[in-house]
């Protein structure tokens, strides 16, 4: 049991980035104490108290108190959660924008104008025997619109700056980015868990505090 406890501690120290010499020293210290206690017939509880049942918490606490591990403060945890929430909200907003653009850019919501040509003066240039000539319609529609002839009496005016196809593409990209971001964020938060999500920086660097021989 004792070696298993120490190995669990080692793994936690490694995860926390505790320098190997320090981790080895702490492991040797607790291992020697546990061995002595076992030789005297004492239980691990008498050496470790309630920590005997939770080696990872024990190891993290010890490393943090020595200043060689990473343990986030409450303010860092709050900041991390706020950051995570803000990221999810931003991704949600992106996804919603994408969905809106897809709806707006869909054929039922597009802006092309289909119908008879607008009235032009009878003697307007370009009107030839009732046939609308594209350059003239283009002149009426303006430079920012494309003219797509349907037949001789109907035409399609499409705003070049707001193409339905282009809008839908942008919307689709935004929707995919937003949903993928939310999905990956959720997976990441589930994978790391609340404790790892809020892992902080080392509190202070390790430093010797006495004449360790």
């Amino acid at each position, binding site marked *: 049991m004792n070696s298993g406890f120490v190995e669990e501690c080692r793994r936690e120290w490694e995860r926390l980035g505790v320098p190997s010499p320090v981790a080895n*020293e*702490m492991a*040797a*210290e*607790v291992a*020697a*104490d546990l*061995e*002595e*206690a076992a030789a005297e017939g004492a239980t691990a*509880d*008498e*050496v*470790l*108290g*309630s*920590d*005997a049942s939770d080696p990872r918490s*024990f190891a993290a*606490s*010890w*490393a*943090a*108190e*020595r*200043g060689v591990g990473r343990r986030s403060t409450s303010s860092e945890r709050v900041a991390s959660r706020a950051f995570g929430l803000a990221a999810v909200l931003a991704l949600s907003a992106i996804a919603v924008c994408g969905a809106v653009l897809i709806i707006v850019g869909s054929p039922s919501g597009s802006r092309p104008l289909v119908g008879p040509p607008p009235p032009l003066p009878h003697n307007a240039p370009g009107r030839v025997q009732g046939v609308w000539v594209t350059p003239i319609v283009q002149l009426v529609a303006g430079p920012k619109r494309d003219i797509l002839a349907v037949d001789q009496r109907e035409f399609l005016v499409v705003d070049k700056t707001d193409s339905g196809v282009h809008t839908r593409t942008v919307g689709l990209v935004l929707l995919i980015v937003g949903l993928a971001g939310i999905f990956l964020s959720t997976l990441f938060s589930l994978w790391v868990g609340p404790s790892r999500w809020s892992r902080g920086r080392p509190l*202070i660097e390790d430093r010797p*505090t*006495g*004449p*360790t*021989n």
Partner: protein
Amino acid sequence: MAPGDGRRSQLLRGVLDLCLLAVMEEGPAYGYEMTKRLRARGLSIVGEGSIYPLLGRLEREGLVETYRAASDGGPPRKYYRASADGRRALAAGVSEWRAARDALDAVLGGVKTEAAA
């Protein structure tokens, strides 16, 4: 956990560093040795957290000095002893403890526990 257990833990948590510094006054000791010294005075850590994180904090704060030395027939151990700052902290802490204890005794000392039990 009974309510009394939680209170005992909180009380102990507030003074366990002083207790460790106090048992070091008897001479340098390694972790388990300090646990045994505490137990010999009736203070068991069973049910409480271990003393190692606390020793780590005392070490980080410079209140203890450490060194490695061979133990009796065993592997080299890490011994702890109070530094000069540690002894001053112990003296100040014991004064605070006694003042708090006296004040609490003045409030709680007259309560008859036998009647409630």
